Structure formats: C-alpha cells, structure tokens
C-alpha cells in the first residue's frame, strides 16, 4: 500500500462540493418536511374509523414500504413524465420518490405513537366535552410526539442517507459532484473518502442525540 494520498486535488474543487452539499440539504429539507407531514396525514387516515380513509391509506403505506426507494425514483423519473402533463426534473422525481417512501414509513411511526397512548386519555378528553379533533390535537399528539422522537429522528437520518440516490438520476447532490470531480481528476479515492467523511461528520452527532433521547425515554415514562 504505497498509494500517495492527495486531498489537495479535492480541495481545489471545494466550490463544486459546496454546491453539492447545498443541493443535498435542499432535497433533504423538502423530503423531511413533505415526508413527515404526509406521513402524519397517512398515519391519521390509517387509524381512522372510516373505511374509505383507512383502506387507501393502508394500501399506500404497504406499497411504498415494500418496494425499494430507488425503483420508485426511477419510476417517477423515467415513467411518470410520459403520464404527467408537465416536465419532471431530476430534483422533482427524486423528491417525489423519497417523500412518498418516507411518508409510508413515518405513517407507521405516527400510528404506533398514537396507539401507544392510554385509552383513558381519550375518555378523559371526551368526558370534558372535547371532540375527536380537539382530543387528537391537544391531548394525544403532544404526548405521542414526545414518545416518537427517537423513531422520527432515526427516520430523518435515513432520509438524509437516502438523498444520495438522487445522484443515480444525475441530480447534482454531494455524491454526484464527487463523482464529477473523481472523473475529472482521476482521484476517486480522495473524492469518495471526503464525501463518506462528510456524511459521517454531519450525521454522527445526530445519531448520538438519538441515543440520549432513547435513554431518557427508557428512564422516563
């Protein structure tokens, strides 16, 4: 192993990596926000007493949980544009795939969290004259969200890692930029090592936070 490491050639192209990081954060932000919101809606629908809400939500959740997210991204990038009346960019296709996939997974987290709340809380809410919506918004969700925090943070970490799949359809995220740099400079070792370390440095502190949350949860309620 007498390879001479040369990170200077990567540092020279730091502007390209910076663009990639911004794009990675952009798609992550979109997918986190849209995925969790849609996930909450789906989780509530899955828990609903109305059959016409519960069944479609269940189908959606099972379908997107049981197919690989890269297949979904490819579907939205290569197949969907033929059906859709508008242009689909790589960002849109990747964001759609990752968002729907994350929505399905977080819906199950929300459902589990809501169902874990003691039925007595519902009865108490009803006893003081609250409606379903009020009970859900004011009593159940605030308690459930606290319990779901570790699982939701883990989902966020998964979403961040998933954004690299956007590079497979040539969206200029961090990994795609590294691939460009590697092909221009013939320095794949340094380029990919830098990207791997970047992900580790960004995500590891968050992973530690989930450990703390989980420990606090085990001690608390």
């Amino acid at each position, binding site marked *: *192993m007498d*390879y001479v490491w040369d990170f200077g050639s990567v540092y020279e192209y730091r502007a390209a990596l910076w663009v990639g990081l911004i794009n990675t954060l952009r798609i992550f932000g979109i997918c986190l926000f849209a995925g969790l919101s849609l996930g909450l809606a789906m989780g509530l629908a899955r828990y609903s007493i109305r059959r016409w809400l519960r069944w479609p939500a269940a189908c959606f959740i*099972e*379908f997107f*949980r*049981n*197919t*690989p*997210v*890269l*297949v*979904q991204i*490819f*579907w939205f990038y*290569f*197949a969907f544009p*033929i*059906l859709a009346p508008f242009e689909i960019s790589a960002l849109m296709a990747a964001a759609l795939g990752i968002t729907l996939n994350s929505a399905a997974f977080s819906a199950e987290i929300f459902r589990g969290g809501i169902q874990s709340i003691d039925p007595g809380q519902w009865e108490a809410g009803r006893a003081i004259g609250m409606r379903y919506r009020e009970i859900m918004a004011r009593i159940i969700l605030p308690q459930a969200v606290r319990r779901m925090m570790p699982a939701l943070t883990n989902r966020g*970490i998964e979403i961040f*890692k*998933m*954004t*690299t*799949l956007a*590079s*497979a359809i040539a969206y200029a995220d961090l*990994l795609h930029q*590294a*691939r460009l740099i*590697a092909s221009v400079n013939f320095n*794949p*070792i340094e380029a*990919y*090592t830098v*990207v*791997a370390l970047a*992900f*580790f440095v960004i*995500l*590891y502190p968050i*992973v530690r936070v989930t450990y703390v949350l989980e420990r606090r949860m085990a001690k608390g309620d």
Partner: protein
Amino acid sequence: MYEWDFSAVLDNSDLLWQGLVGTLTITGTALAFGLPLGLLLALSRLSPSRWLAWPAGFVIEFFRTTPPLVQLFWFFFALPILMDIQMTPFLAAAITFSIQSSAFFAEVFRAGIVSIERGQWEAARAIGMQRPQAMRRIILPQAVKRMIPAFTERSIELMKTTTLVATVSYADLLYQANELAQKTFRPIEVFTVTALIYFVVIFGLSLCVQGIERRLAVSGDSTVR
C-alpha cells in the same frame, strides 16, 4: 390518454427473471457474509477489552451512518486503486452489502444479547462456565430466538438496498428493467411491472415475518427490534 401495452414486457420477461435471480444472488451473498461478520462485530463491541470494543464500535457506527451508495462507489471506484485487485460490479456489491448489513446485524445481535437477564450469566458462572462457553451455550441460543423478527426485517431492508447495485451496472432486477425500458421505449409498463415484482416478493416476506412474530409472541418470547 396513454395506451398501456404490456406485450413488450411479457415478451422479454426472461430478462426480468434473470434480474430477479441477480437480486436474490447478491442478497444471499451479503447475508452469508454479513451475518457471521455481524456476530463477530457484536461480540467485539461487547467485549470487556477496550482495544476490541472501540474499533468494532467505530466500524458499526461508520457503516450505519454513511449512505450505502457512497460506500458502494468507494469500493467500486477507489478500492481497486489501493489494493491492486480486479474489481467487478458483483465483487464491489458483495463487499459493500456484506459490511453494511453486518453493521446493522451487529446491533441486532447486541440488542438480543443485552436483553438476556443477568441471572443467566450468573447461573452459568455458578456452575463453572467461562465467558465464551456461557455466551455460546446459554446466552446466544436464547438471544437468537428473540432476534428472529429483527433479523428478517433487516434482511428485507437489505434486499431493498441491493437495488443500488444497478448504478454500477450489476445485472439485478432494476438494472435489467432499465435496459428493457430503453430497448422497448416502454418505461411505464417496465418500471410498473418491476415495482410490482419487488412488491410481491418483499410483501410476501413481510407477511412471513408477521406470522413468525405472532408465533413467537404466543410462545411467550418478547421480540427485540
């Protein structure tokens, strides 16, 4: 209105079957290497000696917190320069997914081992067993049973992750679908059928997992997730 036409897919269904076999091959290979490696990592991380526990902890955390696609690109494009080996898409995928899944399996093993009551260790020590003996004969047999649902779930996760190999042109199901879509100009039908094949296989496996979980719940063993 778009006219659906599945004949192009049906005429070339053997391509997709080959792809599915490719997907199952890489999943099986990664499982075969990932499980023992995961057990090794878990035992090292739980070891009382620090120079075993820390490196194992680092490997586990590193491979759990970096995206698998970055790892795959690193092994495919960077490793051959460092190590003078002939890199093939299959080899890169096998290395990546073995190590990546072993990091996750290690955590499953660890959770299972930690979940066994201390009394079991103490009982083993009381009848004169050494730590490795107690681990092999008393702790692991009980822990593995509790870990089965988490294992199967992780294996399903692994199968979904193997689609990434399509990006380094290993002929898995997704790669074959992409080829077929370009050849027949029927991306909608091809990718829809592909998604359905994945769904049928993976949903079928998930149902099996749920069945196993229910049976374990009946037999009174709590399941670790």
